[in-house]
């Protein structure tokens, strides 16, 4: 498949480039433009980014592979990163993950046949206070999960309903 940026994308990349003294600094945001456009930055997309920025392909490849947030292959429309690191693990992260696996009929690391969902088991996302939790496609956090809650989340996503951003108050120490 041939990947090409649209005029808008190219304009955006020009704007990004103008922000920095050197184009090298534009690598990360330009990769985001690409991932937003194509859903991933596989090796062909990496080449396109390198060409567009006139940077060495090897450099763009190095950057893209350093960050897990850039998808180096095609993923589902929704990527569910379920945390099973310590706090989430203690609060039932594995129950959540397993229920998701059952519901989607895939194992962690796989993508559903219809290309809707990719399920990942990930390390700490820094939201231990509302464990267990997951993140949807590098974006929204869904917190205080239960097996039931993840089932309904999947149903909602299928129906095109994405969750709202959530603001959670942490219990503070009362100062007398």
């Amino acid at each position, binding site marked *: 498949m041939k990947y090409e940026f649209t005029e808008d994308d190219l304009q955006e990349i020009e704007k990004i480039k103008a922000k920095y003294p050197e184009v090298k600094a534009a690598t990360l945001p330009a990769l985001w433009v690409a991932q937003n456009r194509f859903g991933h930055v596989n090796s062909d997309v990496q080449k396109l980014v390198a060409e567009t920025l006139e940077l060495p392909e*090897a450099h763009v*490849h190095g950057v893209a592979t*350093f960050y897990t947030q850039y998808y180096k292959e095609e993923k589902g429309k929704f990527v569910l990163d379920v945390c099973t690191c310590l706090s989430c693990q203690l609060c039932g992260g594995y129950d959540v993950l397993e229920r998701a696996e059952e519901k989607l009929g895939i194992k962690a690391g796989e993508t559903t046949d219809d290309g809707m969902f990719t399920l990942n088991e990930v390390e700490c996302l820094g939201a231990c206070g509302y464990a267990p939790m997951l993140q949807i496609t590098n974006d929204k956090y869904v917190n205080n999960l239960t097996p039931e809650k993840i089932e309904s989340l999947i149903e909602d996503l299928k129906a095109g309903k994405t969750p709202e951003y959530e603001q959670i108050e942490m219990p503070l120490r009362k100062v007398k």
Partner: protein
Amino acid sequence: MPEVFIDGKRFEYEGEQRLLQFIQDQGMEVPFFCYHPSLSAPANCRQCLVKVGQPVKDRETGEYELDENGERVIRWFPKLQTSCNTMISDGMVVHTQETDDLVKRAQKDTLEFILINHPLDCPICDQAGECPLQIQTYKYGPEGSRFEVKKVHKPKRIQLGPRVILDAERCINCTRCVRFTDEVSKTHQLTITSRGDKNYPITAPDREFDDAYSLNTVDICPVGALTSADFRFKARVWEMNQTPSIDITNAKGTNIDIWTRDNLVLRITPRYNEAVNDHWMPDEGREAYRLFNENRVSRPHQKIDNEQVKSSWNNAFATVAEQLEGVDKKDVLLIGSSHASVEENYILSKLSSLLGYNEPVFTSHTEKGKGDGFLLTDDLAPNANGCRLLGFNEVDNSKLSGLAEKAKVVLLLNDNLVDREVLSEDQLNNTFVVSFSTNHSQTSKTADLVIPITCIAEHAASYVNIDGRIQRSFPAKETKYTNRRLDFEMNEGRLDRYGTNFDNWVTEENKVDCLPFWIVASKLADQLGVDGFDYGNGREIMEEISSTLAPFEGVSYARMDEESGIVLDQEKTTVKS
């Protein structure tokens, strides 16, 4: 002058200096991996940690504050510092592993971390014996490891490019190879992929590491991660002899080391010369090792009934003499060679003047577009400038072929004129061609008589590079007539010292039956009845050259060795009497 105190000793310094480099320049040591004097210093291996402090100054008076003992009060940096990217400043106090237990401990622990996932496969690793990781682990590393978990596995035997192979498990991610392609060869072909314990250097997807200088990364890789596709598994480092020499594949005069075992050249690596090639050399030059081993002319060959057969040395000299005596002096053409050394060419011209022949001519060997402004040059011969400074007539290809066609006898010093299409076989039909050759070639095949001469790996001789710098070689491999133990110019490695003809380390096979051109010429002169033409080695020829020819004034082997080559005054010319 500003001063710095290292392990209690005071040193003076000038200008901007990196601490690690300065310590090394003083003959002391701090272990390190990622630093390289010709690359940037990203300080990512963390092996070169030292303790650094700065004396406290009184802000009002600018005087150093003193403690009750009258010593300067030192404010230590809160953490250990990487010496490779610390710049020295006036009054700085440094403690290395020699004087500070914390530093020692830190270096040991860093090594323990570096080795967590390293396979420790030194017994089967090509780098063993010349591996900074191995050496420094012995010197500064821990005895064991506390990491008893399974090691992380990574790809092995990746063919990064035509000449370089990667074993990612051995890599310590120092990024020297990546920085080399970014900063020196500027092809930007390598990067580090992934992160954490999964990272290793790689090209962009579907791209080859075909950099014209790619093998330098093998040299600078401080572990056995990058190995040469050609050299790997051929020899252990300690079995080989290392002899300084000069690259002969172009006119840059890149300084090299020739590595031999049992008189076979197994690899060529660059030798540091700041004024010529720094630490680097092109991949092409390394290929030249084959020239020294393969397809060598051994024993004189004479053409009988259109077929070259082996002949004896005596017969060869007698044949040349016979041919020369049978023709008019003006019908003899001597062709010098930019592929041969100053000494060889000088001897050719001396012979011609003693015998009353015309001065030798030569034609340079260039190919447009071969040069890259770095270490490759359009000129593909190592010594065109040497011939020019000797006062040889430089002629173009067509002129040369005209001269050769007219001549009755041609004496041709090692230059493959037929192979590079300056001369054609037909042109030489009515000419008796004597070729003094190192290797069999189309040209030597055309010759009526081939007399084998030593190559750069077998003699000490000098070459003048494109910038007019004269540099010399050392004999690296023996011929049938030389002996390592008797020739003081030659190195003796372990196998040479302890090997005998009765074990299987040493064979006679790899010694070529050839003589240095000056000895060949001396014997010829003898045959022709010329008195006093007797040269034993390059050193004495160079003494004669420097005392008689203006451009070479003051040149000697001793000076070339001392000063890593001498830039000749190209304004001066050799005046022919």
